[in-house]
């Protein structure tokens, strides 16, 4: 049931046939785990809190640095030195006091992540390194939890949706089987804020669509974003039967 305040707050959702009261109630019941509170996690968490996702769990181990402020729009100058998850939690509650936000101020080891997944309906991978991405993918495959992956660097972005609640879903490891760290990341290659912002915002969009029951256009697909041309390419990701993570090995 939605309160009178909620009916007002979410009126722009309730007007949409694709959301309505049923959709808003589904958002209220939803549990989303967002891993990484940087350039992707900033807009993703802001939009999900604003939309009324009832339970958000935020995970990151970083403190806010001045170089984050160029693109991580949750943070302001006087937050420097504070924990990203604590500051984000506070701001999300200020945006939307109706939702519950829990923070995990550390790098989760695999066992803790697996435990968290028993309570999560959906995971957003908003991390910044290959080791974390592979670990999250593997844990979501094993726990059968849907995973929306975002990534960005320079003027390029990548977006994927693997619905691991379906056994025939492909996985991140089918696409990128290398666990070794890439040499390119935001700290050594740079990034334009709205590029990573666009990808994080679209992760939030796909999450909202998932809970209100709108089909995703990008399940088992990779979207490549070229921020120079604003062109998008779309690729189908077939399940690799020999995948050591999701295959019948």
């Amino acid at each position, binding site marked *: 049931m939605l309160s009178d305040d909620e009916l007002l707050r979410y009126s722009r959702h309730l007007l949409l046939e694709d959301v309505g009261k049923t959709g808003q109630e589904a958002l209220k019941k939803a549990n989303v785990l967002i891993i990484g509170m940087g350039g992707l996690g900033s807009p993703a968490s802001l939009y999900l809190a604003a939309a009324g996702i009832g339970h958000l769990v935020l995970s990151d181990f970083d403190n806010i640095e001045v170089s984050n402020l160029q693109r991580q729009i949750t943070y302001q100058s006087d937050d420097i030195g504070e924990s990203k998850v604590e500051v984000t939690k506070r701001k999300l509650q200020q945006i939307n006091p109706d939702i519950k936000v829990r923070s995990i101020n550390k790098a989760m080891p695999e066992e803790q992540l697996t435990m968290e997944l028993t309570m999560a309906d959906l995971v957003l991978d908003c991390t910044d390194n290959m080791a974390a991405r592979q670990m999250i993918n593997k844990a979501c495959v094993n726990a059968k939890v849907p995973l929306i992956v975002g990534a*960005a660097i320079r003027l390029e972005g990548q977006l994927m949706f693997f619905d691991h609640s379906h056994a025939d879903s492909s996985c991140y490891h089918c696409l990128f089987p290398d666990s070794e760290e890439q040499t390119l990341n935001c700290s050594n290659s740079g990034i334009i804020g709205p590029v990573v912002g666009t990808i994080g915002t679209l992760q939030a969009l796909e999450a909202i669509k998932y809970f209100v029951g709108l089909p995703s256009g990008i399940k088992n697909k990779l979207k490549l974003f070229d921020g120079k041309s604003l062109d998008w390419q779309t690729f189908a990701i077939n399940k690799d039967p020999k995948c050591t993570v999701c295959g019948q090995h």
Partner: protein
Amino acid sequence: MKIHVNEQIVELADNSNIEQLLTYLDKPLMGSAIAVNQEIISRSHWADTILNEGDNISLFQAIAGG
């Protein structure tokens, strides 16, 4: 035969497979993904995927950043 790799024309021996293309292009395998006509080909199928005249190949790197 002629194929397109990231919108550039590449002249390649007939019946080449993806591994042979990557060797020819001298591109790193690590962190790379490859699509033939908008479909990603898993690493395990690179050796047995034969390319055809006119194929559109997309070759790109994993992005880890965020």
